């Protein structure tokens, strides 16, 4: 079943057109990788999908599970199961990591009509999930992302994903700033979250992430549109030939 359907998406930032007719279909259970050179519109796509302000959609549509995603606020999208793992997770001093995540999960559970988890149940849940990304329990009680290293922040993102159990997970440059060990841990966490009823869209510049999280489809974004789609081997070709030959084709 089609989970996400993006049709002819045009989006601008401060009047400047970034996405120019992007289309993409994602089914439940699939893992898609969106690759592309810097400035091709990868992060813009992630932000438009998550509802970040300041991105103006000028044309096209995004339908998520039959609903008009663009008409929904960021929190409504999150409650309906859209999750964005940030490229640069934000620090929130004084707000306890566990506290925020509990508030988030309970907001989502309320929306689903499920009972809220109390502190004891939530702690049990988060400790179990923390093992998935080999996250030390110390980090749970610290302020959200405050003083975390790059790798710890990315792990924290995947921990949040594991707790919130989204239907659609968008990973924005999750590999950036990670050394090889941290990359392995994060990728391992994501792989364990692959499920037949969950879709994952990874946005990445380099194909090395794809060695660890093997996608079903690879798309190349250039000039605000998807210029080529293929399987795993397309990423390998890109690694060998770079993006320039595709940019020329797009032009």
């Amino acid at each position: 079943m089609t989970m996400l359907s993006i049709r002819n998406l045009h989006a601008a930032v401060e009047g400047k057109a970034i996405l120019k007719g992007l289309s993409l279909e994602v089914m439940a259970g699939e893992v898609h990788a969106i690759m592309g050179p810097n400035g091709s519109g990868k992060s813009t796509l992630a932000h438009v999908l998550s509802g970040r302000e300041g991105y103006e959609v000028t044309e096209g549509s995004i339908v998520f599970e039959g609903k008009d995603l663009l008409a929904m606020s960021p929190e409504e999208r999150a409650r309906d199961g859209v999750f964005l793992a940030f490229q640069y997770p934000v620090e929130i001093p004084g707000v306890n990591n566990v506290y925020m995540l509990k508030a988030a999960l309970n907001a989502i559970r309320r929306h689903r009509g499920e009972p809220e988890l109390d502190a004891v149940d939530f702690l049990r849940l988060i400790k179990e999930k923390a093992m998935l990304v080999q996250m030390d329990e110390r980090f749970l009680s610290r302020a959200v992302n405050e003083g975390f290293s790059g790798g710890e922040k990315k792990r924290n993102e995947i921990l949040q994903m594991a707790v919130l159990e989204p239907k659609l997970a968008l990973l924005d440059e999750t590999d950036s700033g990670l050394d090889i060990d941290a990359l392995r841990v994060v990728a391992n966490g994501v792989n364990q979250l692959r499920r037949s009823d969950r879709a994952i869209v990874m946005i990445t510049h380099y194909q090395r992430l794809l060695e660890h999280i093997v996608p079903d489809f690879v798309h190349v974004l250039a000039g605000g549109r998807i210029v080529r789609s293929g399987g795993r081997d397309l990423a390998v070709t890109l690694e060998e030939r770079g993006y320039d030959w595709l940019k020329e084709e797009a032009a």
Partner: protein
Amino acid sequence: MATSANDVEALISKGYKAGFITEVESDTAPPGLNEDVIRLISSKKNEPEWLLEWRLGAFRQWLKKEAPRWAHVRHQPIDYQAISYYSAPKSRKDGPKSLDEVDPKLLETYEKLGIPLREREILAGVAVDAVFDSVSVATTFREKLAEAGVIFCSFSEAVQNHPELVRKYLGSVVPVADNFYAALNSAVFSDGSFCYIPKGVRCPMELSTYFRINAAKTGQFERTLIVAEEGSYVSYLEGCTAPMRDENQLHAAVVELVAMKDARIKYSTVQNWYPGDEEGRGGIYNFVTKRGECRGENSQISWTQVETGSAITWKYPSCVLTGDNSTGEFYSVALTNNCQQADTGTKMIHIGRNTRSTIISKGISAGRGQNAYRGLVKVTKGADNARNYTQCDSLLIGPKCGAHTFPYIEVKNPTARVEHEATTSKVSEDQLFYCRSRGISREDALNMIVNGFCREVFKELPMEFAVEAQKLLGVSLEGAVG
């Protein structure tokens, strides 16, 4: 991203929930201030001659003083002749003997504010003194406190029933000529609370005073005096509200605390005077002098304040650490939204040896609010091994507010250790969006971020007050992100 600033702006607007007016007949003195008015107040209260003289002495000092101009606040000059200095609900002549004699309308007022005065309805463990305009209307749990030897009554009653205690301690921490507003208060103070905790007694319940300004064109000048004798302990709470009115109203209180050897006083305030409207019309001018003296060895005074109301706050709860090994603490959250201005902080005066002080100040500015921390840490010559730790954090919400920090440090003893840390941060669109992308609403996200910022202070508040403070902060920020 051009929209973000406007959104944050839109989040800042609020509903003041204590802004109603109670229709009671009141006995109000005509506006104006002169010796006759002071004589009138004193005679209404049937005061002894020495107290009248004390008031008149203060008035003469006040005439020589000028209003302080150094605070980082702006307002039109106050016309002290346009204010009425005494207002009392008419129904009570000699003061109600029991709650049954209190005007039901007044009881209703306090109930609307969530402060039931009927003892059976009260949270067990909190005794309340309710001050309405110039007079105390009811003090609860008096008998139970008397069993422990604790005196808790209105200031006027203390003058009648315990004149020797009042005379001994009144003005002993804040002298009449201390500053312009303290001198004014000393001249015209109307009522307030008096607490006396005898030697070795741990006060069996929280004591609290609830102040309410109701009448128009009046000022409220309450006077609070708390004396904790050797080895005693008391926790005292104070709350304040006022109706919404277009004109500014003056509130100039004086609070004096005295802690003897090994005594401990914990004083908590949740101040929610009417802050004025979005355009800055109306609101209370809260010009208050609060000071405690750790007079005995090993004594401790701890101030915790949550200041969300008032058009202007000018307030520096301070500790004079006279006794050796005494400790002063100041924990503060001050929120300014819309056009509110706050200039608040503390003074820690180290006089005794091995004295310690801690200052944790959290300033939150939203809307066009201006928030200043002003603090003095003074270590006198004889204060060997004095230690101070100051942490002063400011949080900005939106692009039009301001945060200012004025720390003063005066050290005259080389063994002192004084630390000062300060931070300024902004609630950013990035933080709000991050929370929202996890399913948390914008309002909840803002509250979470602000509460996280204040946590170190809230944990110092007694339980019920901490909950109230969090809610109040939520209400005060309503609409502060849209």
